[in-house]
């Protein structure tokens, strides 16, 4: 492949993302009420964690391992946006694509089908972010968060939520690809969710975990999809550490992309389609 050809392909892919993203955004705009209701439904989870850990902080004289009800509120309110950013194409969708034979059509597409999922969800997220702002305002009024964001932290946060979306989407895709062999992946996905819940900062800030769980977390991509973006906004460390964090996110994107590429190639060879 020549250098000019590669540049052309990157440019074409960029144009595809812009077009597909815009289309999905428009689509999402027509279902505003439905996606807002979904977002409100997703609020229960972090509000429960916030209430429980705030109660613990108060019963210990105002803070638990350095977290006060105020910083916990900041953590879990930011959590709500990060969680929304994290939504990607779920493995259950692959079961549907496989059993209905729709995967066949996707394999005929001129570019790798993962781009269609990434662009589709990416475009929708722009609408979700806009919808999140008033929801967050209500949460701020209800729970009085305290945080000290820095300009560098905000910048890193804005980049890292997109990186988190890509990392999680890649790993969800990887689980989804298992359906090429097993037709079902929901039990595996449940297992993934359990690990994610405990080791990502989704259930509690990682500093509240016992040491052995925290060291286990280092081996997985989970914390780079929850803990890192949240802390970049509400408790940013020094700038070099933030940049290093973005570097680790890039690394996990690389690992995920490589795994998807390799497994996809084997999955395609394996694929026969139900009814084919």
């Amino acid at each position, binding site marked *: 492949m020549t250098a000019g050809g590669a540049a052309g392909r990157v440019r074409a892919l960029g144009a595809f993302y812009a077009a597909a993203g815009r289309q999905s955004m428009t689509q999402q705009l027509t279902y505003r009420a*439905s996606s807002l*209701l*979904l977002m*409100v*439904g*997703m*609020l*229960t*989870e972090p*509000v*429960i964690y916030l*209430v*429980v850990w705030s*109660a*613990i902080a108060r*019963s*210990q004289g105002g803070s*638990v*391992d350095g977290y006060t009800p105020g910083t916990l509120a900041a953590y879990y309110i930011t959590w709500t946006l990060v969680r929304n950013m994290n939504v990607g194409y779920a493995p259950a969708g692959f079961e549907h694509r496989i059993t209905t034979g729709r995967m066949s059509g996707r394999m005929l597409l001129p570019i790798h089908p993962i781009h269609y999922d990434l662009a589709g969800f990416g475009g929708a997220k722009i609408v979700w972010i806009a919808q999140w702002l008033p929801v967050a305002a209500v949460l701020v009024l209800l729970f009085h968060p305290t945080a000290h964001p820095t300009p560098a932290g905000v910048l890193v946060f804005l980049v890292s939520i997109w990186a988190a979306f890509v990392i999680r989407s890649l790993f969800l895709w990887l689980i989804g690809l298992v359906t090429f062999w097993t037709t*079902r992946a*929901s*039990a595996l996905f*449940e*297992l993934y969710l*359990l690990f994610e*819940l*405990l080791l990502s900062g989704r*259930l*509690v800030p990682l500093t*509240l*975990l*016992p040491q052995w769980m925290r060291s286990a977390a280092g081996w997985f991509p989970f914390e780079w999809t929850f803990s890192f973006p949240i802390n970049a906004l509400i408790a940013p460390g020094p700038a070099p550490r933030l940049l290093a964090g973005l570097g680790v996110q890039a690394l996990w994107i690389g690992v995920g992309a490589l795994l998807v590429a390799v497994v996809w190639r084997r999955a395609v060879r394996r694929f026969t389609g139900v009814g084919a």
Partner: protein
Amino acid sequence: MNIRLAALYLRLLLLNEMQYRANFLLRIVTSVLSLGTAVITLALVFRQVQRLDGWDLDQLVVLAGVYTTLSGFTQMLVMPNALALLTDIQEGTLDAVLLKPAGALLAVSVRSSKVWQGLDVAIGLATTATGAVLSGGVGLSAVPVFAVTLLCGAALIYSFLMSIAISAFWFVKLDNVAELFSGLFQAARWPVGLYPGWMRIGLTVVIPIGLAVTLPAEVLTSRATGAGPAALAAFAAAGLAFTRFLWRRGLRRYSGASA
């Protein structure tokens, strides 16, 4: 007679489900995982404190058991039947049920049950018993009151969700209600007293899931006053009566697909 009919419905559904053995095995894995999550969460909380809003670890195990039981009941009997009713009202296909000679409310309340969720009911009851034994101090006399309040809690959840589904006779579009409810139901994992005032009122009166789960657990951990169970029983009876009333009014409105 009606009870025998309901039992027959459920038996048929169970036989149908038992054809898929591998799937059943996966269900067991999923149920065990979700119980594991609850246990690990409790362990993390009790690393920090000895009591949460007056509840100790064993008592919260009882609550987790009641939660799992009622959540299993909801996923087995209430939610799938409410959703099926919603679809039938929207599409006008309810006629097929109404034409049958037996009581239609009973039929729409059992026909689409997901029997394998009964597994969660069993796991929940076992967890409740474990918690009760661990926390000691539970008199045998508390058990019948507990059983009654648990049934009342189940009846309350049934009335609440069924009434919403029945209201589709008037407001046809209610698609996202199920997801919203599943999200809110999670709040009942913790004692309702833990929540700030406005949420506590919401979870007791407006959407009474907090009341339905917390109160039976309070009875079994001997922290309920006599007024609580009586109020729950009254609330549940009123809920069931209201559901029946709404169903009759709704049917009068319904004209079916072919009418």
